[in-house]
């Protein structure tokens, strides 16, 4: 009797999650697999085959864009970690109890505004006739208007700004659980600041670092608005290719194949990152 109730409650609790995974993640992806393996031979006539994947391999534009998206996403992840870690450390360890909440809230505020509006905010600031350029001219530092927009640096900056919060939150929560005595002990045993950081703080924060990096990398590689709006005439992003295949070229088959290639590629990068840094999901993300 008792065990029946237990089992029933387990099933009931688990059901929404299982349904969500099955109906919204697994089923659509299976549909996409089937779609990506269809080759169009004539209007309304399709054949089974790997043509869409072969097209990807044969066309340097596609895999160059994918590699570009991947490497820029890695750069964004590294920058977000380098900028986010000191902020998280300050919030979790240095700031007083009372200011901690306020600081955390300050980090959250940008999230209340949609991605689109934030991208337009950057456009207003950075365009040739925008705030920065006008200010520089007014202050006499430059004589000609400067265009800050439409280049890769702007895209990386915009992306770091969009995703950095997802780096800070897991870092703060792991660092928060760290006992200050551990740091003190490190110094007492004669370690300098760098040694303490390298041998005590970073290993302790590793679960937060790994989960933060994975989330940030996945979000960046899959982002659409920021690279499109801030990017210039040479900056292609792989999600844009997927959109073009689906919408502009009516080529859903190849769009589905591209979607899978992006998923496979980002999963591979995450796997490689874990291998190279000697971490596993079990002792990092599962712990954080």
């Amino acid at each position, binding site marked *: 009797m008792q065990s029946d109730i237990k089992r029933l409650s387990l099933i009931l609790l688990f059901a929404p999650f299982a349904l969500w995974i099955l109906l919204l993640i697994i089923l659509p992806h299976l549909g996409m697999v089937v779609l990506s393996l269809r080759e169009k031979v004539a209007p309304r006539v399709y054949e089974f085959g790997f043509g869409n994947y072969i097209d990807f391999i044969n066309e340097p534009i596609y895999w160059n*864009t994918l590699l570009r998206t991947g490497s820029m996403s890695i750069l964004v992840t590294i920058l977000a970690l380098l900028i986010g870690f000191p902020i998280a450390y300050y919030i979790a360890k240095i700031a007083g109890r009372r200011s901690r909440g306020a600081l955390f809230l300050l980090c959250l505020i940008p999230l209340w505004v949609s991605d689109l509006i934030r991208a337009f905010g950057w456009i207003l600031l950075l365009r040739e*006739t925008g705030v920065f350029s006008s200010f520089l001219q007014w202050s006499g530092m430059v004589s000609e208007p400067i265009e800050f927009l439409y280049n890769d640096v702007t895209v990386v900056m915009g992306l770091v700004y969009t995703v950095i919060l997802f780096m800070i939150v897991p870092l703060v929560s792991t660092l928060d659980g760290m006992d200050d005595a551990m740091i003190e002990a490190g110094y007492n045993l004669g370690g300098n600041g760098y040694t303490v950081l390298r041998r005590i703080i970073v290993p302790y924060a590793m679960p937060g670092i790994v989960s933060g990096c994975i989330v940030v990398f996945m979000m960046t590689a899959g982002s659409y608005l920021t690279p*499109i*709006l801030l990017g*210039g005439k040479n900056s292609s992003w792989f999600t844009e290719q997927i959109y*073009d295949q689906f*919408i502009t070229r*009516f080529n859903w088959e190849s769009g589905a194949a591209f979607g899978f290639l992006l998923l496979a590629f980002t999963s591979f990068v995450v796997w490689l990152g874990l291998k190279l840094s000697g971490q596993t999901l079990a002792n990092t993300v599962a712990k954080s």
Partner: protein
Amino acid sequence: MLSTKKGAGLIAALMLTSASYANAETLRLLTWGSYAPEELVQKFQEKYPDITVEVTFSNNEEMIAKLRATGGAGFDLAQPSHDRIYSAQLEYDIYKPMDLSKINTSVMEDSHLNGVKANTTIDGEVYAVPHQWGTSGLMANKAAAPDFKGWGDLCDPKYAGKTSMRLKRTILLGTAYSMGEDPFAAYSDLDKYQALLDKVADKLIECKSNIKAYWKGGDDLSAMMLSGEVVASETWDSTAYKLYGQNKDIVFVPPETGALAWIDTFALPRKGKADDAAYKWINFVLEPENVTIMSGSTGAIAAVKGGLDMLPADKKEAVTAAFTDADIANLKFFANIPPGVEDMEGKTLEKIKAATE
């Protein structure tokens, strides 16, 4: 006591809404931004109180993608351009034939009606009728670029870093014309068309360093033009007319090789459920006073007899400032896109985007 009152009110409200659903029809429009101005929707609902209008704003590509996803369900009236009916119907079967007897075709401009009919007839059935027409061409700030007159001028080093274009098929076609070719004639021989596209791609890649940025929508184009960051651009005429209202130096320039003309149509999605309401809407927006309201919102010219004269005064001024009769006679109407061409053009655009100077 209070809660019972609330409950009764709630039930009454529910009954009211379900009652109004029972005899009301919903007209689900899939159309372009500004093609269903609030003023007209209100007026239509006053005239036909049992019809509720729901509007979804979109563009050619997304309209077809949306209808394709559902096999033509979810909307009762769509408004793709005239060159987006034939192959979309052949490939995805998303429209249903129209009953022309239910449409007041006598008020439509004959050349447009016949043109659209010729473009959208499959197996003897007509799939679309014209609504509004306009052109794609160039716009220039006359104060900064007085001699601007052709597609090729976008690549003129005189305007280095001061021009813009949208990286879509229009610029491919325009550039082909500026090189002395006729892209629509090449549609019949796809190998020849590919060779032409390769030439166009080389030209546009070479031109890349001259371009400030590729615009993506009417808003960013307007901002660049009004701020003076660019002095000339490829554009839709309606965007140029809107800017003319704010700065009389910014005019639409029909390219010397001819502006590219499109006609937005009315088409019935295959699984639409409110055909009668759709026909009512079509006839409603063809009424002269409604034509003026519609054109005021869209900036395009209605495909009805005397459509130009029915434009609001400011738009008419912008059109007459831009077009001479010779320009009108020189219009190049977009030809039906044969299957496969979208893919070829898409690849060419990707090549241009990915190329580094």
